[in-house]
Structure formats: C-alpha cells, structure tokens
C-alpha cells in the first residue's frame, strides 16, 4: 500500500474546506449554476436524474481496508447502503444530498480519500494495471510512477480548465490490462537496448462518440523526463484543443486534425524548453515514492487457517470450489500464492454494485488474509492480490456467504455496464435491466462459453466501453424508444481494437435473443478450444449478420 503523508492530508483537508465554501455559496445563491458547475464537476459531483452523483477517486485502483470501511460507512450514512465501481477504478454514490457532500468529503479525507478531479475538464484519476507488481511478465511496477503523475496532476494550476476531460493510464506489462490505448495519454513502461527504464507514450486514444486508438508519440521517454513530457503534451492541448464544440474537444481530435508528426513536433519543441527544469525527476524522488509502497513479505510455508483446507485437498473434494478456483483465481509470480478476483457480477446485483455489508466484510477479509489491501479493476471487480493458496478454500467460503464468489471472471456474465438511463442524465437507454436479462439467461452456461468480453453503454459517451467489447452493446434513442446497437470483434487486451457494427439497432425486447444468436453462431463454428474472439475474427462478421437479421 502507498502511505500518504502529512502533506497529502493538508492538501485534501484544504480542498474540503474550499468545496464546502463553494457549496455554501451556491446554496445561498451567490454562485450561479453555470459558475458552480465546473467547480463541482472538478470535485466529482454531477447533477443526475434523481440526485447528485458523487465520484470518489481510487488512485490506480489501490484501497486499504480502512478506506473501504469508510466507503461502506458513507454509503450507509449518506446514501442507500450501496455504491458502484466504475470502469476507471473509481467508486460512485448515486443518492447523496448536495448539502451533505462537504461532510462526505470531510469523512473521506480522514482516510486520505477525495474526489479531486474525478470529473470535469481536467486531469482525471490515473488508472493502472490491477495486477501491477504481482505478474511475472512485468517490466516494472507502474504504481510508483502513477503516484508521481498523480501528485503532479493534483490541483494543477495550468490544466484545470482544459478543453475537455483528460485521462491517463499507465501499464508496466506488455499485456495491456489498463486499456491504455483508449486513454488520452497511455503510458507503457519499457526498457531500451541499454536496459534503461523509460516510457513509451501514446496519445489521442479515447472512446465516446468518436472512438480512436492512441498512437505512439514517443517510443522511449527516459523515466526522469516523464513529467516534463506529459506537461508539454498538456500545454499544447490546452492551447490548441478545440473549445467551440465539446464533441470535438478531446485531444484525439486535435491529434488527428494536426497530424501525429506535426503534433509531436509541437510537443517536443515545448518539451525541450522545460525538460531540464524543475519537473526533472531525481533518482532520490523516484526511490522515495517507491519506498512508500510497502511490500508484503511472502511466506513459503503457511498452515491452512481455521476452516480452510490445503489447496490440493480442497480441489479434489469440492467441485464448486474447483470451478471458482479455475475461473476466479490467477497464477501469482510468487510460488504458493494466487491472485483472487471478487466478482461484482453476481446475478443478484447490477454489475459493479456493492453493498455496505459486502464492503465491510471484504475489508475484514483483506485484513485477515491480504495485508489489508484491496484493488479495483477496470472490469468493475475487486482483487485480493496476495492470497496464500492454503487460505483459498476458507476465503471462497467467506466470499460465497456475501455473494462475491460467482465463478464468472472473464466470461459473458462478467460484463462491463454503465448505470444507464436509470441514473444517468446523459443516457439514451437503460443498461442495468439489459445486463440482468442477459445474466439470467446465461448464468448457468457462462463458464462453458469461455472468455467473452461483453461491454455495454447506455449512450455513445461510452462509459461502459462498448466500442472495445468483443460484444459491444450501445443504447440509442429512436423517437423516444430504447434501441441497442451491437458491435463485434473489439478488444482491450494487448492491442486495443474497435468493434465492427453488426447492423441496424435492435429493439429492447430482442437484445437477449440477439446475444443468443451470436453465441449460437460461435458454438456452431468454434474449432477446438477457440475463444469467442478467435472464432469471430476467423469467420468474420457476416456470418453473425445473417443469423441476427436473417430471422427478422
């Protein structure tokens, strides 16, 4: 876990005081809604369909048990006993009262949490690989660099009134588990031929109504120069990004209009003027941040805890446990340890939702078995990163008791889904009921169908990442009715890829049937152990079209 210091505490306490004062002025009529809007958005507060929505940051998806208990407390005290994890590793409350938001922020600040820049036209939460530090394929743990970028971006005086929102994702592994290619800036940790550490920097990726894959602007920026490099990108964007049309204001539009080569030249001209200034990172600073990530000692031998069983025995004796082990746990770089996913995709709750009681129990289990650490993923699940294999059986039982052991990670029912029309004032169509219908239909066959990434958004803003789903579903409005546009063949792993449009939008009542048709084509055509994505790529989209539209 990263240990926050007094400096961080002072900064967020002062931010709470500032926001309290701004909220008071708005409620007293001294700030207009137009004036208050960007100020509240910069603090994660939207005005939604039923109530304000507050988005709280979880920097690079890392939470302590103490923080999670506070999130549970807030859901009980100020909301409706639950919260929702987002695709950018954050958490959202859907029912707070505006007048109470400053108190919520004050409570959050007691555990060094906040909503600073979780929305608005500024630099958003820095996201990262949820498996950082625990996978053998990693070049380097990206989290200390995420933290360095987080500090630099926090309350940045120059970049708080950008043309549009700005998102960073950082990955330390060649396997992209942070969707870096669909971020405004994606950063990959790499080593050059001399073995030196640096970053490959991508720019101009993004989802939303004009989805684009980021392009490499520089294939090797020395680790000490990363802040000056990204500052140069932001400065060029802030000066030249379009401000006349919010749908054309993201950096991806600027990069496309300018051309990558010309944009790179602008950025690097600026970069060379600031490269050797105060943004240059010293080795001492990098080491200091690295040392604040306290590593857990791993145990080679560990007796099973009370009510647990040695792993091999548990696998032999319990089929249900075995299915969960296979689907929801992953190999760890440390022998005898496993990475455990806590599925927030039970058939009984909307995707990504978690209750206060679940949060409290997860916090207790994290203390008991995982050194008090919880990670959030961009697939809207949770992870315990360091579970000894002899604790798995016990943990599985405990997770079953709180409905977080659905054995479906990476499968169809582990779908990504935004809150949709039920909550969001931007949405054109509902997504939660659609996801629940699909889940009910496929909950028994989901593991049999294998790895399938289904992603769904209730509008083209694309919070549910539909454009990069192997099956993407986008809610659209047609003359006041909710329709759903399907895409197939998208990807967010290794190289991101945008899905292809299947055909005309589908009526709401036919959505589950359409998913069925698509999966039938897959199972009929599947060769050997081909995954859905592989079959889809091999046979092409036309085979699916015929089945889906031929029958109508």
């Amino acid at each position, binding site marked *: 876990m990263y240990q926050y210091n007094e*400096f961080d505490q002072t900064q967020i306490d002062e931010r709470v005081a500032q926001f309290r004062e701004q909220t008071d002025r708005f409620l007293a009529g001294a700030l207009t809604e137009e004036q208050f809007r960007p100020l509240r958005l910069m603090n994660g507060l939207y005005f939604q369909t039923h109530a304000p929505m507050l988005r709280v940051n979880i920097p690079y998806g890392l939470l302590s048990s103490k923080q999670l208990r506070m999130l549970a407390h807030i859901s009980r005290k100020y909301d409706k006993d639950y919260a929702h994890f987002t695709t950018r590793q954050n958490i959202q409350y859907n029912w707070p009262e505006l007048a109470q938001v400053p108190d919520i922020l004050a409570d959050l600040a007691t555990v060094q949490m906040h909503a600073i820049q979780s929305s608005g036209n500024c630099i958003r939460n820095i996201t990262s690989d949820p498996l950082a530090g625990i996978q053998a394929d990693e070049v380097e743990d990206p989290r200390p660099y995420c933290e360095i970028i987080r500090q630099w971006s926090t309350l940045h*005086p*120059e970049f708080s009134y950008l043309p549009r929102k700005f998102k960073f994702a950082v990955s330390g592994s060649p396997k992209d588990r942070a969707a870096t290619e669909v971020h405004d800036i994606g950063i990959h940790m790499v080593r050059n031929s001399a073995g030196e550490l640096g970053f490959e920097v991508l720019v101009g990726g993004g989802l939303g109504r004009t989805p684009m894959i980021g392009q490499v602007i520089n294939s090797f920026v020395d680790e000490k120069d990363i802040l000056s490099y990204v500052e140069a990108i932001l400065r060029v964007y802030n000066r030249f990004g379009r401000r006349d049309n919010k749908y054309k204001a993201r950096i991806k539009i600027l990069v496309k209009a300018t051309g990558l080569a010309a944009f790179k030249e602008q950025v690097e001209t600026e970069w060379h003027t600031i490269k050797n200034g*105060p943004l240059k990172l010293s080795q001492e600073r990098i080491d200091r941040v690295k040392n604040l990530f306290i590593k857990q000692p791993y145990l080679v031998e560990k007796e099973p805890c009370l009510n647990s069983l040695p792993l091999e025995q548990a696998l032999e004796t319990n089929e249900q446990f075995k299915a969960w082990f296979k689907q929801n746990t992953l190999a760890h770089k440390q022998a005898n340890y496993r990475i455990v996913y806590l599925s927030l995709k039970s058939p009984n709750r909307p995707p990504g939702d978690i209750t206060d009681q679940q949060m409290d129990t997860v916090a207790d289990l994290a203390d008991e078995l995982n050194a008090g650490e919880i990670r959030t993923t961009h697939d809207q699940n949770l992870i315990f990163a360091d579970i000894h294999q002899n604790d798995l059986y016990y943990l599985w039982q405990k997770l079953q008791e709180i409905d977080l052991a659905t054995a479906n990670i990476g499968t169809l029912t582990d779908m990504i889904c935004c809150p949709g029309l039920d909550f969001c004032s931007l949405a054109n169509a509902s997504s939660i009921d659609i996801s629940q219908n699909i889940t009910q239909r496929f909950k028994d066959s989901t593991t049999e169908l294998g790895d399938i990434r289904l992603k769904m958004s209730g509008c083209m803003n694309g919070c549910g990442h539909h454009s990069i789903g192997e099956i993407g579903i986008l809610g659209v409005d047609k003359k006041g009715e909710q329709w759903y546009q399907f895409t197939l063949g998208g990807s967010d792993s290794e190289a991101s890829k945008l899905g292809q449009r299947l055909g005309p939008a589908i009526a709401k009542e036919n959505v589950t049937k359409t998913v069925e048709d698509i999966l039938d084509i897959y199972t009929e055509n599947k060769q050997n152990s081909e995954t859905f994505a592989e079959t889809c790529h091999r046979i092409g989209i036309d085979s699916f079209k015929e089945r889906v539209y031929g029958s109508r």
Partner: protein
Amino acid sequence: MVLVENNQLQVTDSWHSINEETPQITDKSIVSLAYWLENKAELTNHKGKLGLSVMGDDELSQFSNELNSFDLVCINFPTFTDGRGYSLATSIRAAGYKNGLRAVGDILPDQVFYLSRVGFNSFELANTELAEFAITKLKEFSVVSQPASDDRAAIN
C-alpha cells in the same frame, strides 16, 4: 471592474486602454496586440510605460522578442472556463518576462489561486465585494504538489 494587485485591492487603476474613444497615448497605456503590431515602431519610441492586451489564443511568438519592453501584459478570458490564458501566462513567464501580468475578463474569485500560480500578479473582478473575497482565496492552499511559475516548492 475592481482590481486586485499584488494581493491588495487597488482603488484606482493607473493604466488606461487605447481605443477609439480614448486614442490618446499616455504615460501608462494598454494597447491591443493588433494595434501594437501595426504601430510597433512608433510605440517602441514612446517614453511612457506600455501595456499589451492579448487573448488566450494569441501566439506568443508574435510578441515574444519584445516582451520585456512591456510593463504590463493583460490576458483576456472570454469565459471563466477558457483555460488557454493559463498556458499562455506560463509560457510568458517561462520566456523570462518579470513585469506585471493581469487576468481580465470573466474571472471567478475561485480561480485566483491557480491564476497566481501560473504567473498572474493582478486580477480584474466584477465588483469590490468579489475583489475582497478573491484576496482571501489567494491563500486557499498552503501546499502545492507541482512546480509552476510562482516558484513555490512542491513538497512531495
């Protein structure tokens, strides 16, 4: 408009703008970029102090060579959400300009802390009440976490 300069309320503004109504150049005149580009030779010889008024999207290269001949640069904010002036101010300070830098136009008291960090030392607010309030906002944060034009030490 009420001016806050160097953390204090200024009752009167000693500068005046050259425009169609007051075309007469004085010892403290603010000229627009277009006016300055057109009358550069004449204005360079003028003995009084000169201020330059620019928009956030004006190119610094148009006046960077003569930056230090100005005693004041005013950057206009057409709306308070237009952040271009923050980057222009940063670039002006980075180019070595040390004289007055003023934020004018649509400015909220909530913005003066950031504006002061990117290099502005004066701000125009809509009225005295807002100007006085803005002064209290200049000290809103006691710590900063990145370097900027104000040279405050980032602590982390």
